[in-house]
């Protein structure tokens, strides 16, 4: 196909889009809705991922020692461990003091000092890398004298579980909507083919290639897909920007700060644009294959 043919095809698809303007707008709208939901889900996934990472990277490993275990031995081992950034030691006495301070009522703890102190000695350990927390925790739990190691894996696990469910739900909804949008594109292009049936019939007698006949319809579908996605991307970007800036102003704890890094957000928007265009192209390709006898 040369440049003249390409120009001709472009013109034809514009004419066709104008002829079925309302249907094209509705089709693009459905694509916009389905991709907004998909995009929303992707943004949510990126943010959930960031949140989990934030929580994980701030997780301290609480290392509780058995009664009578050697504090010095554990300290030396922790000093030698390359994955550990730093640690603080909280003796059982300090622990009790902190505990009673947090309760604000010392009376309840009377009689628990000294020999009767039920709390264990404790190291609060921070890892260099968040990803290493589970493995470091496992290693420390094997040290002699260590009774229990805790790094809040339950919280992380629950978060992962919830976001997993939300992701699946959004994915199913987006797939259903995308299928609906593709069916709508097939119908729209079918109407377009019917409207141009005479022209297509004559084109064959004039020696037009199959691709020359099909291409304007594919362009038409891709334009609908692309327009829909552009609308979805613009709406998503606007909503996300407002949400992100209000969250930042709220000065919430840093681990629910939204992702604003464009290198992570841009691929989502570019991916959506590609997906919308492909959906449009795919829908019209099916329609042209099915309804255009060339």
């Amino acid at each position: 196909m040369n440049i003249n043919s390409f120009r001709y095809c472009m013109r034809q698809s514009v004419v066709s889009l104008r002829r079925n303007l309302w249907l094209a707008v509705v089709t693009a709208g459905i694509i916009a809705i389905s991709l907004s939901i998909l995009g929303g889900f992707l943004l949510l996934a990126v943010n959930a991922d960031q949140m989990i990472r934030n929580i994980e990277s701030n997780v301290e490993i609480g290392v509780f020692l058995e009664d009578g275990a050697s504090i010095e031995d554990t300290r030396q081992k922790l000093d030698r461990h390359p994955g550990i950034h730093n640690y603080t030691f909280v003796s059982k006495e300090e622990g009790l003091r902190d505990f009673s301070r947090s309760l604000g009522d010392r009376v309840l703890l009377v009689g628990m000092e000294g020999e009767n102190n039920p709390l264990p000695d404790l190291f609060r350990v921070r890892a260099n890398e968040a990803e290493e927390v589970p493995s470091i925790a496992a290693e420390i739990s094997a040290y002699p004298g260590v009774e229990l190691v805790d790094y809040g894996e339950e919280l992380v696990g629950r978060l992962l579980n919830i976001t997993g469910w939300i992701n699946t739900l959004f994915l199913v909804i987006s797939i259903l909507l995308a299928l609906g949008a593709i069916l709508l594109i097939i119908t729209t292009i079918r109407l377009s083919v019917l409207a141009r049936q005479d022209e297509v019939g004559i084109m064959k007698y004039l020696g037009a290639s199959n691709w020359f006949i099909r291409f304007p319809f594919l362009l038409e579908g891709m334009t609908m897909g692309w327009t829909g996605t552009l609308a979805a991307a613009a709406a998503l970007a606007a909503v996300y920007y407002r949400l992100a800036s209000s969250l930042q102003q709220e000065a919430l704890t840093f681990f629910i700060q939204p992702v604003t890094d464009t290198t992570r957000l841009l691929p989502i928007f570019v991916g959506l644009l590609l997906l919308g265009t492909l959906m449009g192209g795919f829908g019209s390709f099916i329609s042209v294959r099915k309804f255009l006898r060339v």
Partner: protein
Amino acid sequence: MIQLNNVTKQYPGCADPALGDISLEIEQGEFVFLVGPSGAGKSTLIKLIFREQLPTGGRMYFNQRNVTALKQKELLEHRRKIGMVFQDFRLLKQKTVFENVAFALEVLGRPPKEIKEKVPEALDKVGLLDKARSFPDKLSGGEQQRVGVARAIVKDPLVILADEPTGNLDRDNSRQLMDLFETINQGGTTIIIATHAWEIVDRMKKRVIALDGGRMIRDEQRGGYCHEH
């Protein structure tokens, strides 16, 4: 130029072949009438030459090329050497006369400059340059068919295939159209016309290939519609 060797066309579900064992040769620059009653096989023969359909038997050549074994790209090249004229004109109502003729070049991807030059030339040849901006609905049947001819000749075809081109025209318009075909033929273009219009065939004294029931019953240089005429 066009050569058919024992060509047969059998449609599925039909007892008799639409064309049976046809052998003929048409030279470049000839003017040929295909005559015969309805169902004689004239339209089928035209469809085979255009390679809209494939024969079920025999061989067909166009410029020494086996038409039955063309690949997709070669098929397009083959069709681009042929201009088609139809009984029902097949003009696009929403396009002007100029645009209808230009369409034939646009689908071939020709540049706008060439289209601007060639379309007025073709319209001038058929005597409709002054109607370039009109829409087909505003033209008489004869004029519409001349637009159809302009669309066929604008791409400089080697052959023009016309299936009942005067079927919807009165006698005067038919005569004018045939004069136009004759002028085009004088320029070296081969003309093949399937027709029922015996007066025209008899008047023009061109080569006549008569078909009946799918068989070729007569092939005469400077013939008439029937033997008796």
